C-alpha cells in the first residue's frame, strides 16, 4: 500500500486547480488519479473558445485552458496517473484503484479531494417514448465523436435541451456540415448562457423553440425523425399541436448529474438539491479530510468558477493537512425563497480569513428583483438585479465584518425579493 498526503480523484479542471493550490501551500506528496488517457477532463473536447475570460482575461479554448494547468502540474512536479480508475474509497481515506500499468493498488491518503465531475442525463431520465434506434446521443458524446474522433454522428439534427453543451453542439455540427433543425427547450427559458444563445444559435439562424419538447422518437434501425409539441404551463405536451421533424440524429442536452458514486462509498453526505456533497466554506464534506470541488459538487456554468472553487478546496485541504482547519461553531447557509440551492452548505466562521463568496442558483427567471442576504432575521445585503436566470450561477459576498457583527448567527439565508 502506498501513502500520500493528498490524493485528488479526477484530473479535469477541478482536480488540476486543487492540486496546484495545495502545492502552492507547500503540500508536497500529492497524487492525481485520472481515468482518461490524459489530464484535462472534459476541456479536451471543448475546442471552442470563451474559457478563461474571468481568470486569465483571455479567450482560450478548452484544451488551451487545460494546458495552462497541466504545465503548472508538470513544473511543480505533481505526480499523476492516467488511465487509472478509482474503484473504491472508504471514509478512512483508503482507496483502491486499477490500471493496466499498475493492476489493482491501494493508497492510504491523509486527505482526499473529490473532483470526478459530472455526467449527462440520458434519454431514459426523461423517459421519452418511441423506438430505441441508433442516432440518439447525448450532446457530450456527439462532441467527443466530432472534436476528438473527427467523426460525424449525424447530418440532420434536432437538439433537445438548451444547456450550454447543446448550444455549443448546435454550432459545432453546423460548422462541420450538418443541418441543425432546431434546439427544443422544455422550459420557457434557456438553461444556457446568453452569450451561447447569441453566438451559437442566433448567428447561425438556428431556431430555439422554448416551451417545446420531444414527444416521440421514430425510426427502426436509425432515427428517422422526432415529434415535437409545445407544452402548457405545467410542462405537459399539447399533443394536438404535435408535429414531425425528419432527422437522423437527436442530441440530448438535458442536464448534468454530479458523479458521486465514490463519494457515497465513502459515506459522504449528499445534498438532494445539488446531487453533490454538502460542504463547508473550505469545500470539506461531512467526512473529515474529504473535500469536493467542481462539477462533482454542483454543476458550474464556467470553468473559471470551477477553478476558483478548486483553489478553495486545495487551500483548505492544505490547511487540514497542516492541522490548521477548525470545525467548531457552524452557521447554516439556507437557500430560501426563490433560490434553488446555495454552496457551501455550512460556514465555520473561524476559518474565514477575509471574505467568502456564496454561489447560488435561482429557481425561475426574475426581472428587477433583489437578492438579499439575511443573518438570521436581519437583512444584511440587498442588491437589485436586472435579470436572474437559473442558467447563470450567481454569487453574493459575505465579509468577515458581517460575520463578526453577527457573531451569534445560526443561519445565513439567501432570498430573492420583489422589493
Amino acid at each position: 500500500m502506498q501513502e500520500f498526503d493528498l490524493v485528488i480523484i479526477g484530473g479535469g479542471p477541478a482536480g488540476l486547480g486543487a492540486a496546484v493550490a495545495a502545492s502552492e501551500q507547500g503540500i508536497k506528496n500529492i497524487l492525481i488519479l485520472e481515468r482518461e488517457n490524459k489530464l484535462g477532463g472534459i476541456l479536451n473536447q471543448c475546442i471552442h473558445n470563451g474559457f478563461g475570460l474571468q481568470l486569465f482575461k483571455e479567450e482560450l479554448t478548452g484544451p488551451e485552458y487545460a494546458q495552462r494547468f497541466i504545465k503548472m502540474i508538470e513544473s511543480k512536479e505533481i505526480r499523476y496517473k492516467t488511465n487509472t480508475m478509482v474503484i473504491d474509497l472508504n471514509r478512512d481515506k483508503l482507496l483502491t484503484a486499477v490500471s493496466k500499468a499498475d493492476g489493482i493498488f491501494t493508497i492510504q491518503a491523509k486527505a482526499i479531494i473529490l473532483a470526478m465531475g459530472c455526467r449527462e442525463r440520458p434519454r431514459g431520465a426523461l423517459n421519452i417514448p418511441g423506438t430505441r434506434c441508433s442516432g440518439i446521443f447525448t450532446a457530450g458524446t456527439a462532441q467527443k465523436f466530432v472534436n476528438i474522433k473527427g467523426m460525424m454522428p449525424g447530418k440532420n439534427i434536432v437538439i433537445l435541451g438548451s444547456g450550454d453543451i447543446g448550444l455549443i453542439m448546435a454550432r459545432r455540427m453546423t460548422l462541420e456540415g450538418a443541418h441543425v433543425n432546431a434546439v427544443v427547450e422544455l422550459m420557457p427559458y434557456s438553461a444556457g448562457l446568453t452569450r451561447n444563445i447569441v453566438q451559437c444559435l442566433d448567428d447561425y439562424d438556428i431556431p430555439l423553440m422554448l416551451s417545446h419538447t420531444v414527444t416521440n422518437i421514430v425510426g427502426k434501425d436509425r432515427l428517422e425523425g422526432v415529434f415535437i409539441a409545445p407544452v402548457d404551463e405545467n410542462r405537459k405536451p399539447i399533443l394536438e399541436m404535435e408535429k414531425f421533424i425528419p432527422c437522423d440524429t437527436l442530441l440530448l442536452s438535458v442536464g448534468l448529474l454530479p458523479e458521486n458514486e465514490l463519494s457515497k462509498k465513502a459515506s459522504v453526505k449528499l445534498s438532494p438539491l445539488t446531487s453533490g456533497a454538502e460542504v463547508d466554506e473550505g469545500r470539506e464534506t461531512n467526512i473529515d479530510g474529504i473535500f469536493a470541488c467542481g462539477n462533482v459538487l454542483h454543476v458550474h456554468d464556467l470553468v473559471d468558477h470551477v477553478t476558483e472553487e478548486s483553489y478553495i478546496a486545495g487551500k483548505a485541504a492544505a490547511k487540514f493537512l497542516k492541522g490548521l482547519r477548525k470545525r467548531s461553531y457552524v452557521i447554516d447557509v439556507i437557500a430560501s425563497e426563490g433560490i434553488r440551492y446555495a454552496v457551501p452548505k455550512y460556514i465555520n466562521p473561524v476559518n474565514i480569513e477575509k471574505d467568502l463568496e456564496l454561489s447560488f442558483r435561482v429557481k425561475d427567471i426574475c426581472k428587477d428583483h433583489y437578492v438579499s442576504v439575511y443573518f438570521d432575521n436581519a437583512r444584511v445585503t440587498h442588491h437589485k438585479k436586472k435579470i436572474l436566470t437559473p442558467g447563470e450561477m450567481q454569487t453574493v459576498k459575505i465579509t468577515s465584518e458581517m460575520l463578526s457583527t453577527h457573531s451569534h448567527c445560526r443561519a445565513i439565508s439567501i432570498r430573492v425579493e420583489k422589493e
Partner: protein
Amino acid sequence: MYDVAIIGAGISGMSIARELSKYDLKVCVLEKEVDIAMGTTKANSAIVHAGFDAKPDSLKGMLNAAANRLFDQLSKELDFHFRRNGSLVLCFDKKDIEHLEFLRQQGIQNGVPNLLILDKAAVKEMEPNLSEDVVAALYAPTGGIVCPYEMAIGMAENAYENGVEFYFENKVLDIKKSDDGYRIITDKNTYISKVVINAAGVHSDEINNLVSSNKLNIIPRRGEYCVFDKEVGSYIDKTIFQLPTKLGKGVLVTPTVDGNLLIGPNAVDIDDKDDLSTTKSGLDEILNKASLSIKKMPSHAIIASFTGLRARTEADDFIIGEVPDAKGFINVAGIESPGLSSAPCIAMMVKDIVVEILAPQEKANFNPVRKGIPHFSEMSNEDRQSLIAQNPAYGQIVCRCETVSEGEILSAIHRPLGATTLDGIKRRTRAGSGRCQSGFCMTRVLDILSSELEIKRTEVTKFGGESRLLVGKNKEDV
C-alpha cells in the same frame, strides 16, 4: 445437408440447440438478426416463474415448474446469472384472498414446492417497502430472476462448442419440402435439413404457414418496461406480482439479477411485429400500476425504458410438436410467458421428438460446461490482480458506470459467436447498460469494435442493419 435446422436464435431455439448438441446430429441455427437473443428474449420480465400461474393441463402448467428446478444446475454449467429471490403475489382486498388460495392449489398441482399464503405482517416483514394496502400475498420461494440474453448466449456458445453451426443475418424466405427433408431458402443461401424446428418467436406463424395448411396466427402483444438505476435496485428483494383485479392484469416490480429495479409490462395487442416503440400511455400505465405495489415509486431513477413483444396465439398455450401435415417440421410457437422459465423443458420436449424421428446416438464427448466472460465488477481484488497479470487489458476500465474492463470487451468480441455490435457488447458485458447509458463508453467501445473487427468506424452499428452510429467524417458536406 443438416439433420436439424433451427429457425430463430432466441431462448427457445438456443435451449433446443444446446439440448440437441448432446447428440450425434448435424445441427444449424438460422437467425435473421445479427446476434443471438434479438427478439423477445432481449426484452421481457427476466423472471423464472415458480409455475403456479398456468392451468395444470396446459403445456405451460406442465413445463414451467419442472423447468424451474433445472435453473440452478444450468446457471452453473453455462455461467449465467440466476438468483432464486422468491416471488410474492400481492392481494389488496380481503375478498380476493381465496384467489391466492386458488393459485396455491394450482401451483401444488403443477408441482411448485413450498407455496405459502402470508398475512400482511409477514409480507411486510419480508418486504418493508411494499404498499400499506397489501392484505396478504402468495409466497413462492422457488421464483427466480435471470439474465435472459446471457442465458441464451450461454446456451448458444455451449451449443457451438459442441458442434452446432450458426448462420446470422439469414432471413428465411421460403421452405420447400423435398425428398430428403426441407429446403430452407434464406436471403443469403439455401439450407437442406431433414428436420426443421420453428422457433421464430413472433414470426413463428409465418414460418409455420410456409409448410402447413394448419395456419397459425401470432398476435404480437406489446409489453413496456422501465429500468431503474442500481441505486434503487435493492428497494425490494422479491419479484412482486399483483393479483389480477377488475382493472386488469397487474404489473410486476422486481430486482433484476444484474442489480437494477424493473417494472412492467402492460399488454397491448398490436399489428406490427417490428414495432418495438414505447408509448407515453404505456409508460404511464406501468408506472401507475406498479405504484400500487410499493410505497414510493423512485421515478427519478429511471435509466431506460423498452418494449418487448410476446408471441401470443389464440390457443393461449405453447404450441410444441411435429406438424401433422409436414413430417419432420416441429413447431415451437406461441412461446409467450412463461417461455423463458420453461425453455429448458421445452428443449427436452423437442429433443424427444427429434430423437423419435432421427434416432441419433448420444455424443460421448459432449461438454456441458461453458465459461462466460470474467466480470471484473464481481471479482475479489485478488482475482482481479491475477487476471490483470495474465492480461493487462482487464486493468483498463472502459465502462465506468458498470466497471467493465477492456479485457471483457475484447473477450466479448473474440469468443465463439462473439459480439459484432454495440448492443452485442452491452448484452455480453453490460458496458453501456448503466446509469449513463453508454454516454461515456460508446466512443471507446466503437473504436474497439472497429479495430478488432477490422471494419470502418462508420460500419459499426448499434444492432445490425442500418443502425449505424456514425455517418461520416467531419466536413464531408461542407
